[in-house]
């Protein structure tokens, strides 16, 4: 079936199979940074923003994206650049595989929480797993990024 999705403010058409998930539909449309990870809903790699809320695209049916604002990393280039600068400044750069989902969650958190504590940051980011570099550098960077205007 053919569906229309609004991605990063632009309407796109994509042909999907019955029961196909959003991650797969976005990949077909060329959004390759929406990564496929655990596929059990545990790792957060495939995170996109659905009406501004961090959501697992691997567990959201593509048809449920109809009529919603879907945001991938490309749609947040200004904030992504700001966060990347802080992240590298803290020596917290990663291999990059989990970075898109992690970065989108951090951006959503900044909009949702005002001056979050370390515990609130950890709680918000529980659903984003990093398989290589760990978490401490990233936590420092996130804390600093929360103060960036």
């Amino acid at each position: 079936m053919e569906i229309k999705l609004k991605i990063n403010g632009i309407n796109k058409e994509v042909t999907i199979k019955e029961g196909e998930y959003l991650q797969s539909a976005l990949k077909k449309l060329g959004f390759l940074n929406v990564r496929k990870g655990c596929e059990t809903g545990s790792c957060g790699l495939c995170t996109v923003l659905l009406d501004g809320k961090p959501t697992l695209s691997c567990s959201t049916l593509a048809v449920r994206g109809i009529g919603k604002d879907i945001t991938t990393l490309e749609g947040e280039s200004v904030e992504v650049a700001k966060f990347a600068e802080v992240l590298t400044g803290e020596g917290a750069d990663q291999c990059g595989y989990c970075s898109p989902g992690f970065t989108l969650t951090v951006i959503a958190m900044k909009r949702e929480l005002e001056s979050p504590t370390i515990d609130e940051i950890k709680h918000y980011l529980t659903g984003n797993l990093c398989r290589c570099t760990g978490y401490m550098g990233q936590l420092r960077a996130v804390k600093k990024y929360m103060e960036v205007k």
Partner: protein
Amino acid sequence: MFTIKQHLMAQSIEEGYETLVKNRNNVILGGTGFLKLGNKNINIGIDLSDLDLDYIREDENNIEIGPMTTFRSVETNKLLRENFDGIIAKSVEEIVGIQLRSVITAGATVASKYGFSDFITALLSLNTQVELYKGGIISLDEYLAEEKIPRDILVRIIIKKDGKRAAFKTMRNSKSDYAVLNCAVSDLDGEYRVAVGARPGRAVVKTISNEEVNNKIDEKIEAVVNEMKFGKNMRASGEYREMIAKVLIRRCLEELESK
């Protein structure tokens, strides 16, 4: 991964129900976060997301949760944070991450009677009813006690606003994992309602009077736990769960006592 032959965006509950009962392999789609872990062959996947069933609201007597409400909404909802000492919201906040909680739905969890559910345990400790499209309104206890999952649609979760104080505790092997055990206790008018879930079977509830607890707390906890069955799975043995149950019940009671 499941397969779906046809996806139906239902335009009414009636249409969803009629489709559901036509074929054993027609299934109501909740968040589909858990469904995707299996390999079910679905004939028609019935989607209720266009029916405005995503709400948390209150009237004079009750708080109502729509079946398509996500756990993230449950977690952040002011009404649920302010009533029953916030245990309904607290019960979902350790479930994996916020991205998954933005997908999982309250209705699918309750309708599926998941044994591992933290949410069901919290609801069971309160005066909770479920409304089924054809089956009408029944208590959650009664709904869970029935072994089979009815071919019906859960259209509403209703929690009586009776001023119950409550506490919720859960034990996990690691953060964001499924619970090894969970426990919720509520207190109203001299009666404690003790719900224990992830045994690993479905949550069950027992009641004890405040007076009994005040006099012989260890004895009463022992008696309540002895009435429950505990089993093993990859996360814990039945014996371990039984020991943890006593600890969590005691902690809930102590929390209620300190409020």
